[in-house]
């Protein structure tokens, strides 16, 4: 496993705490001392609770923001848009030309968080649905054969695997 800047528990703690404080400030938008104190209090309580749950110690930490992740989201939005159009075309066709397939995709990455990102991306894209994830193998249900072929080309898999680098 490649070490990265989110490897140390302190960096993870700082990331979570800063995210919580920013979220509170943006959600309320009211900067009265009482509300700020309450916000800080709830951030600290949340922080202590998740620390007791072992959020920082195991390797499931998922709060990794990077330029690459945003580029991936933009790419994924395009995929969602085009496959939505395809599913819409299938639904609106009077003949309902579905041809469902089940396939298995082996994740390129050995990391559990990457595998979850891949499975969720597959589900998020209309026309493909992740049924099960077990030991890096994702069982996928696809509405059409073209959707299954698209996944087997492995582009999404490669892009998710590349997320962890840099």
């Amino acid at each position, binding site marked *: 496993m490649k070490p990265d800047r989110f490897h140390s528990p302190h960096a993870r703690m700082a990331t979570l705490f800063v995210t919580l404080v920013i*979220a509170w400030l*943006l*959600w309320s*938008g009211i900067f009265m001392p009482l509300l700020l104190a309450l916000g800080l209090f709830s951030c600290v309580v949340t922080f202590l609770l998740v620390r007791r749950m072992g959020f920082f110690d195991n390797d499931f930490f998922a709060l990794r923001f990077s330029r690459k992740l945003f580029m991936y989201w933009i790419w994924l*939005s395009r995929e*969602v*848009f085009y496959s*939505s159009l395809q*599913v*819409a075309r*299938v*639904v*609106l066709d009077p003949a*309902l030309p*579905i041809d*469902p*397939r*089940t*396939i298995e995709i082996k994740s390129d990455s050995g990391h559990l968080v990457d595998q979850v990102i891949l*499975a*969720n*991306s597959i*589900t*998020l*894209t*209309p*026309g*493909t*649905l*992740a*049924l*099960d*994830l077990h030991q890096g193998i994702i069982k996928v*249900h*696809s*509405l059409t*054969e073209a959707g*299954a*072929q698209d996944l*087997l*080309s492995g582009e999404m898999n490669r892009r998710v695997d590349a997320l962890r680098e840099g």
Partner: protein
Amino acid sequence: MSLALILDIVSWLLLSAGGVFVFIGGLGALRMPDLYTRMHAASVTDTIGPALIIVGIILQSGFTLASVKLVAILLFLLLTGPTASNALASASLLAGYRPEYARALTEEERQ
């Protein structure tokens, strides 16, 4: 044409397109033969529908705190939606409900 009018037109188009996709998703959920294929149709309602509608509302609210919250709502919807879908799909698989309309992709079909 003023900027406000252009923004109104674009936002109106996005809201309408989002509504159309939500409707198509609902129609698909009715037309599809089994649970898994229905979930494909429902995921149109889950993803592109709310995305277009929320971007349409953001154009109405402009650079305000409300827009930040709308972005957060969209982000949470897109992050939690697949989790719920996966839970539903694996629960029905575990309950023994097979995707009977689907067949495995054969070796010849693999490119």
